[in-house]
């Protein structure tokens, strides 16, 4: 898979910190001292418990939130606002899809904003409707689709706009186990075809190992940071029943438990 990597579209994060509220208030940092380099074409997974600051970091990379300190570069250019080059697949499709547009119109949204001609739009949307397995549903509206299908629409909507980087915020978290498994497999297939950089957020260790070339493990907010990086050398598509998979799972889980224990220990010392 290393043939997927390009020097272009590299995200470089150095000493990044994020605090909510204005400078005057001392609300504490959610993120502190994040350092990360994500190469072009890489599938990177951000793993951490709920509320640890994963979405916050992803939203800073997307340009939806301003960082408080540090540097954030894409192709050596600072990121300061949202752009076509970074697309987000949101956790809740009902909040992010446009319910007044049918599936095809949702997928063509970015192209329409760019004033691509209707003929060309149709050609592109056809391609991505097929790629994500929504053929035959183009004229339906989001409310007529299941949760898994809505996430396919989100995926097609961003892919049709041809971004360099895909940001995905727990996109399969609300799906049932069976649907989630097939969506994970398809995402890997699409990623190998589309050759995009993916930053994928999850709190599920198994999902992280199933998908990522590298896994960054985040500690809890406040002052969350990426304190450990794992490289996953297993070939795609990955098999959760192999010994290697299981060994890595145990290693990461032990890591989490250790981190929990450390926090409890620290709290005891303070309190």
């Amino acid at each position, binding site marked *: 898979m290393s043939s997927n990597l390009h020097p272009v579209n590299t995200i470089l994060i150095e000493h990044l910190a994020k605090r909510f509220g204005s400078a005057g208030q001392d609300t504490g940092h959610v993120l502190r001292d994040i350092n990360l380099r994500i190469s072009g074409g890489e599938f990177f997974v951000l793993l951490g418990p709920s509320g640890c600051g994963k979405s916050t970091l992803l939203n800073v990379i997307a340009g939806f939130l301003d960082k408080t300190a540090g540097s954030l570069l894409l192709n050596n250019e600072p990121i300061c606002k*949202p*752009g076509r080059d970074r697309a987000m697949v949101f956790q809740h499709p009902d909040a992010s899809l446009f319910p*007044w547009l049918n599936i095809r119109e949702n997928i063509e949204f970015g192209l329409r*904003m760019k004033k691509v001609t209707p003929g060309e739009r149709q050609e592109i949307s056809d391609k991505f409707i097929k790629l994500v397995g929504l053929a035959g549903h183009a004229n339906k509206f989001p409310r007529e689709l299941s949760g898994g299908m809505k996430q396919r629409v989100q995926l097609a909507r961003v892919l049709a*706009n041809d971004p360099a980087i895909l940001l995905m915020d727990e996109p399969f978290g609300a799906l049932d186990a069976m649907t989630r498994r097939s969506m994970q497999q398809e995402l890997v297939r699409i990623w190998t075809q589309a050759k995009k950089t993916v930053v994928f957020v999850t709190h599920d260790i198994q999902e992280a190992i199933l998908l990522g070339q590298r896994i960054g493990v985040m500690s809890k907010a406040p002052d969350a940071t990426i304190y450990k990086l794992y490289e996953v050398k297993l070939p795609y598509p990955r098999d959760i029943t192999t010994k290697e998979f299981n060994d890595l799972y145990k290693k990461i889980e032990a890591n989490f438990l250790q981190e929990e224990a450390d926090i409890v220990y620290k709290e005891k010392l303070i309190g």
Partner: protein
Amino acid sequence: MKHLQHLLKAGIVSWLIALGVWQIAALMFGKPDFLPGPLDVFQGSRELIADGSWLKFVLISLRRVLAGWLLGSLWGVPIGLLIGHVKIFRQLVEPYLNFFRFIPSIAFITLFVLWFGIGEESKLILIMYGTSFIVILNTAAGVLALDEEKVRAARSLGASETQIFFHVIIPATIPYIYTGVRLAMGNSFMAIVGAEMIAANEGIGYLIWTSRLYFKTDWVFIGLISLGLMGFLTDRVIRFISAQAFRRYGITTETRFGGK
């Protein structure tokens, strides 16, 4: 059994019961000047319909309501969008809204007659006041209820701020605007009846007011029934047209009690 279900659903059963109870109550009182029954009212209506005054009054009231409602909606929607979308404007206007929302349009009748005369203008402006108010509030609430994620999605798909306004904010607000204009129609009827009772020589409100003076209680009932029917029919028309034109925005004819 299935037959009964159909009649119930169409509201026929409810109305038959109402008519029955009303007729019995009228017979028990035995004073048509005080409480005329459905048959008395039917008799009275033939007179009123025959000389053409009923249709004239209905059309006059309806024209006032529709004109005021249309104009009020036309300028209420853009103002509501502006209030919802532009924070400074919202902060500037919110104190007024929170003050005037407690003053019903009927309370302005005397003032508007003084300012705009006894003619059509004062009535039109009165209905516009009531309509635009409720449309502004609902539209602004719709903009504020918009999921931030939709705007973020549009932005990272390359939409400019102007494109976001026209392609995300307005379409997402349409169901709220729809609720606003439907509620406003109800308020318009309230306002016009008040205005016609106090300052008019024509219209259904005028009919109700003067009939009482002449002890034509059956005509008062005709006025009330006419209002109910006019409101019911205009609401049906709005619902039907909206469901055709705005189906993709989630608007259907299946709505109850004027809610969403």
